[in-house]
């Protein structure tokens, strides 16, 4: 059970106003998310910002409320966490947050943040022992020991990320969500951090959900790629297929891949078009899609494509791809 993630029919809405949040418009953020992760998998969750990647990560860790038939992480039912269960779950699942500048308290040294992470689950550990642990952790994330005594504002971007990463690893979690762990850094630092992450993940054999908008970063790290678009998972493919064999199937995944590796091909006149309104039915990508035809009786315009398996372990939410597959 440890290190597995099962998600069935997860929905999340934002908004609502008034004293009890019952009035006002609601914006759907996640719609019908289904997937499972096995132990030791490193799944990449890619998509543009605003597609709901971070929201999904927060849902999986039980940080926000959502509606779902079943969400089990490490064997814990997230929807009904509480008491001792919650404490145990918090120990076994961690999140590396998007913004290291703020997920560390500027008033406390990096060392204190790590000591806290170690001692919060087992207060019996003495401070000295925790300090030793911290130094081990620092060695694990390749952070010089002397930098541990700095306050977060005087650490560089890469160092902060290392501290945040070390903090997430402090409890030896079975499942880690890393939310854009390297965005905004310089390329060499990005590369180093990614490499480090991959190594640690392999050594500890933990499950990891790697949230990113940049497919280049994902390519050699992930074993599995989940593509999100406007609150839905549109493609779920093994990395092997996605990057190497036949490539992605969904038109959006293709566009993502091209923009990452062959930017030149995207040049030339582009037609920017509006997205369809959310919840208006039909495929959310249809206006930007190269393959859909303009006829309105097409299923693309009327029916939201379900996420269906087209091959073993490879699921796509696209009418066109299914037709292609059927033709073949």
């Amino acid at each position, binding site marked *: 059970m440890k290190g597995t993630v099962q998600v069935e029919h997860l929905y999340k809405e*934002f*908004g609502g*106003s008034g004293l009890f949040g019952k009035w*006002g418009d609601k*914006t759907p*953020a996640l719609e019908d998310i289904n997937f499972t992760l096995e132990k030791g998998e490193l799944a990449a969750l890619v998509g*543009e*910002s*605003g*597609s*709901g990647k*971070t*929201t999904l990560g927060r849902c999986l860790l039980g940080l926000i409320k959502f509606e779902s038939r079943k969400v089990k992480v490490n064997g814990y039912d997230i929807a009904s966490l509480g008491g001792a269960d919650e404490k145990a779950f918090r120990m076994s699942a961690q999140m590396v947050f998007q913004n290291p500048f703020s997920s560390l308290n500027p008033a406390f040294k990096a060392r204190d943040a790590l000591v806290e992470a170690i001692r919060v689950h087992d207060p019996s550990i003495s401070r000295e022992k925790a300090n030793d642990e911290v130094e081990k952790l620092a060695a694990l994330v390749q952070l010089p020991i002397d930098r541990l005594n700095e306050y977060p504002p005087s650490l560089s971007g890469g160092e902060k990320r290392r501290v945040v990463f070390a903090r997430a690893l402090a409890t030896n979690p079975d499942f880690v969500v890393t939310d854009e762990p390297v965005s905004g850094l310089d390329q060499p630092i990005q590369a180093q951090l990614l490499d480090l992450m991959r190594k640690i993940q392999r050594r500890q054999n933990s499950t990891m959900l790697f949230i990113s908008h940049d497919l280049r970063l994902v390519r050699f790290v992930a074993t599995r790629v989940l593509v999100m678009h*406007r*609150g839905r998972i549109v493609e779920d493919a093994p990395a092997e297929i996605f990057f190497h064999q036949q490539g992605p199937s969904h038109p959006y995944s293709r566009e993502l891949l091209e923009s990452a590796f062959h930017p030149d091909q995207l040049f030339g006149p582009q037609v*920017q*078009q*509006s*997205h369809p*309104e*959310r919840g208006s039915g039909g495929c959310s990508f249809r206006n930007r899609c190269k393959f859909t035809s303009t006829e309105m009786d097409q299923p693309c315009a009327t029916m939201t494509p379900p996420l269906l398996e087209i091959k073993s372990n490879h699921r796509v939410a696209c009418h066109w791809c299914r037709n292609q597959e059927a033709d073949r």
Partner: protein
Amino acid sequence: MSDSTLSISSHTLPIGPRSDSGRLILGLLSLAARELIATILVLIGASLLLFLVLKAAPSEDHLQLRLGQSTSVTAEQAGETFASETLAGQYVTWLEGVVTGDFGTSKALQRGRPVADLLKPAFFASFKLLAAGLFLSALLGLLAATLSIFRSRNPLWRITLGLTSLTSAIPVFLYVYALVAGGNRLIAWGAAQQHWQIPGWFPLPMSPDFVPWFFAVLILAVGDGSLMDMTQRFGSELRHSAGDEHMVGVRMMNISVPVVIARGFLPGALSHISRRISFVLGSLVVLEAALGWPGLGYLAWRAAAERDMPVLLGAALLMAVALRLVLMVFDLVGTAADPRRRVTK
């Protein structure tokens, strides 16, 4: 990027009124409506708080509230029926009277006179004083803050700033005492020198009360920490406004810098002023009490000294109403000045 805005690279925008002024007016109207409701709720809460404080007292002070609220029965009868009501009933009866403008009758101050008659003229006199004091305080504070920022390295201005702190640390009642004592000494000196026979020797125009009034305003503006607080808050607000990241874009576009700084400064400054009113009202009470000038503050003080609860509660409620209304207006102005505050959820 917050997840609730799902709009990057989607170029659809919610359909709304087209023109900016239309959006502004609509937004302000809806804000005003919401604030009005909130204000009413808060004022009900304020009256409840006052009532409960009175009720919590060991004495039967709260029974005074009903005294003479209706004219058809005698005060004693009214008091008895009031006493027999439940707590909620007593509150509702009192509130009903207050809302219809019937604050009851004064018990000790001017026995038997309706409180509303006492409050009305007092309110306008005090309001003028308060508004002038606040305005002067804001003006002086803005001046000092601007100088402290733009001439921050000049020792002379540092000394000036130190002086504002020093003058501001002196309580209002000490100023009043000094003023009165000084005035009396001056007059006494004039008498001793037999200057009173010489017409026009007194350096200040004695006739209408303008001069003492102006001094009172000045005391209100400076004393009890007003000026220091204003200078400090305005300074930090100005610094924020002028050091904001958008100043880069503003300078590069050749947009008028002072206007942008002022627009960034206004909402925060107004909210500081509105926070300050509560304190200045306290200073006003002390000022009027110490000078013996008729006004809301004097009334409140006399009422407290003579345990005349209807008058005290009436004065407190009247001040609360004025405070909330001013707050509301300031909030609307601030929202109009800064579009970032206009984001409707």
